[in-house]
């Protein structure tokens, strides 16, 4: 058995031991706060068992294993529905950026350990009301203030900010130069005076994202990550870190098996729905598409294992999978007819068609909207021209609002 497979089996054994207390079924009916408390416990147990910071350097407290080990663990963990959602962004982007750019190594080490154990959570503050896809259009500004900085402005769509201890943030330090050249990146203490977090209730009923307001928030220059004016580069670096993430060809919605099961249970015109041509066609098309995505993932994994760089086709995963989840959820609700009206906003999106449907639009927008992903494929993979950008080369403060 390959070393990776042994690792995978050990991971599975650990997860099976944890599942009775922390797994999906054990947490049914919990409030978010109860889940968060369990999540912190689970993260500590995960760290103590040697599954925290799997692909991070031992120097900062990681396990020093490969990206494949991390993907293998994540793929196993996803099946158990552990309460890890609060920590995904924290450990995915902000903390690795802190490790890379922060000069105070003792501070970094302590933050990493606490973040891996779930004691502290970090958020990432990029999007603003004036621009999500157009990151460099941000308006939150910093001005020199003694030997540090003073920050004013607003961020939005910040996941889990209401529970966060720290965050990373991109700000505008110079509005007189081109928009992406006048940005500077910092870490901030979310408990600082002048930081106010207001949860946003989303369409599906949950409030995991927030608005964050800054009113004369003091930043020390030691909190700066990267050069003054180098914030856009650090932000791009942040987005590049998580290339090696576990994917889900079901678009983080229900598995196709759930749909097949439903089609076998209900009838259309007095016959099992599974015999209806429209339903069969939907199942077959979805299966073919998802099998293709799974094969892309499997090949990427094999390529990494062989020391090769996986192809750009991995960028299709989210685009294709979430769209199909949205339509399949609608069809599943059609199959249920008026028995599909009953709705539980806290039902698990991987087993419940209603919550899968109502939360699917978020998946098509967050982390790169469908349109941005299509642009990226067109420009970066296929070499098609960039869109017309009238703000190119124009100082930020001269771009018409």
């Amino acid at each position, binding site marked *: 058995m390959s070393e990776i497979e042994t690792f995978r089996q050990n991971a599975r054994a650990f997860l099976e031991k944890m599942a009775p207390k922390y797994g999906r079924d054990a947490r049914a009916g919990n409030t978010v706060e109860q889940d968060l408390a369990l999540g912190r416990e689970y993260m500590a147990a995960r760290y103590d068992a040697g599954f925290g910071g799997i692909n991070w350097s031992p120097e900062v407290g990681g396990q020093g294993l490969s990206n494949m080990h991390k993907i293998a663990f994540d793929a196993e963990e996803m099946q158990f529905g552990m309460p890890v959602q609060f920590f995904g962004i924290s450990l995915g982007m902000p903390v690795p950026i802190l490790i890379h750019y922060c000069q105070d190594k003792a501070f970094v080490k302590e933050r990493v350990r606490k973040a891996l154990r779930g004691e502290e959570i970090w958020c990432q503050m990029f999007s603003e009301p004036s621009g999500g896809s157009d990151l460099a259009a941000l308006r939150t500004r910093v001005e020199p203030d003694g030997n540090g900085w003073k920050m004013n402005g607003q961020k939005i769509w910040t996941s889990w900010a209401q529970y966060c201890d720290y965050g990373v943030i991109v700000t505008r330090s110079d509005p007189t130069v081109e928009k992406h050249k006048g940005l500077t990146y910092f870490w901030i203490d979310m408990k600082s005076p002048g930081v106010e977090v207001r949860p946003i209730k989303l369409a599906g009923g949950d409030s995991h994202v927030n608005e964050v307001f800054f009113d004369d928030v003091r930043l020390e220059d030691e909190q700066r990550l990267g050069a003054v004016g180098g914030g856009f580069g650090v932000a791009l670096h942040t987005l590049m870190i998580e290339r090696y993430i576990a994917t889900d060809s079901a678009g983080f919605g229900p598995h196709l098996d759930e749909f097949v099961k439903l089609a076998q249970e209900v009838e259309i015109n007095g016959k099992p729905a599974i015999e209806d041509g429209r339903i069969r066609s939907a199942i*077959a*098309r979805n299966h*073919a598409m998802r099998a293709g*995505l799974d094969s892309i993932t499997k*090949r990427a994994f094999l390529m990494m294992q062989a020391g090769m760089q996986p192809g750009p*086709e991995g960028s299709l995963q989210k685009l294709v999978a979430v769209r199909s989840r949205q339509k399949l959820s609608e069809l599943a609700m059609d199959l249920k007819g008026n028995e599909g009206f009953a709705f539980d906003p806290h039902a698990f999106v991987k087993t419940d068609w209603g919550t899968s449907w109502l939360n699917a639009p978020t998946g098509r927008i967050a982390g790169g909207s469908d349109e941005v992903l*299509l642009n990226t494929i*067109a420009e970066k993979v296929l070499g098609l021209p960039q869109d017309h950008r009238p703000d190119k080369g124009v100082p930020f403060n001269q771009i018409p609002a």
Partner: protein
Amino acid sequence: MSMLYDEGQQAIATESRRVLDARMAKERLLALLDQVGVIDRPFWDTAVEQGWTALAIPEAFGGLGLGLVELGLVAQAAGAATSGAPFLTSGYGLSSALIGSGNAALQQAWLPRLASGEVTAAVAFAEGNTVLPAQPAVTLSGGKLNGGKPAVVGAASADVALVWASAGGQPVLALAELAGVERRAVSSYDNTRLHADLTFRDTPVQVVAEGAAAHALALDVLARMAVVTAHEQVGGAEALLHIARDYAVTRKAFGQPIGAFQSIKHRIAEMYGLVEIARANCIHAAASEGQPGFLIAAADARISATEAYDTNARDCMQIHGGIGVTWELGLHLHMRRARSLAAEQGSLLFWEDLLVNQLTGEAA
């Protein structure tokens, strides 16, 4: 079998593409469209000369002892070039049937001749939209075949045919030499596929398989051929993606390349997505040859490749505007081929049903 191509397989892909790029000419293919029952001789001679007919036949019978992965890569190159003559697929269908039958005499008699390209084969299973009819119109009695198969791919010039027939109500797979069989070439929208109606009248045959074994073998042969065809479709769909991309970066309108408009660039990005999903399914299917789950993998490959080629043919033409619909530009070679391949080896209707049957544990 690994899902990563090794060096030898990559060399087959590169070399087959290089040879076909050098030898295939659009003008010749356009001229062949107007001719009924005429084989694309330069392509077929190339296929034989390059040893593509021998690829998937065991070395003991004069073949190269390779498999579906390698044949798939050649089929991809052939698809990109809209190569005529369908015998790489149907020849593989017959050789797979003979190998699967375990009949040593038949293998000895035919495999070396298929490998050398001396003999070309057609596979005559379908009648209309029924891919493996429960009651085939062709019947076998006393060793003689009677009845007709409509518009069989390759039959206008093939030497032999593998025929799905019934004998006393039981399915049978029979091998017929076509020398004395009545064949009427069908004037089709893709004439180099060499469609012909076959009419058997007391045609002597050799039985390859009978009863339940014939059904299982026919399904396996069909799935294998479908995987080859899916590769051919991916090759065509990818060629169209590249043609569309190249046109979108050079053609200008309203003062900029049309590829700068999101209506165009997103359409091309979607074409890319369809190609890569179908390619991944093809690689998986070819690598699962002979394993449990092969039928499902073949269906996934077939469904996604059909969707990719049909869609890309539609969209590539649309992106070209007026020039795209001219005879001379030849995009219609792909549009025609996308449809003829979509129907060969059973259409989406067949493969969708087969896939759902497999997923729910029903017999196909």
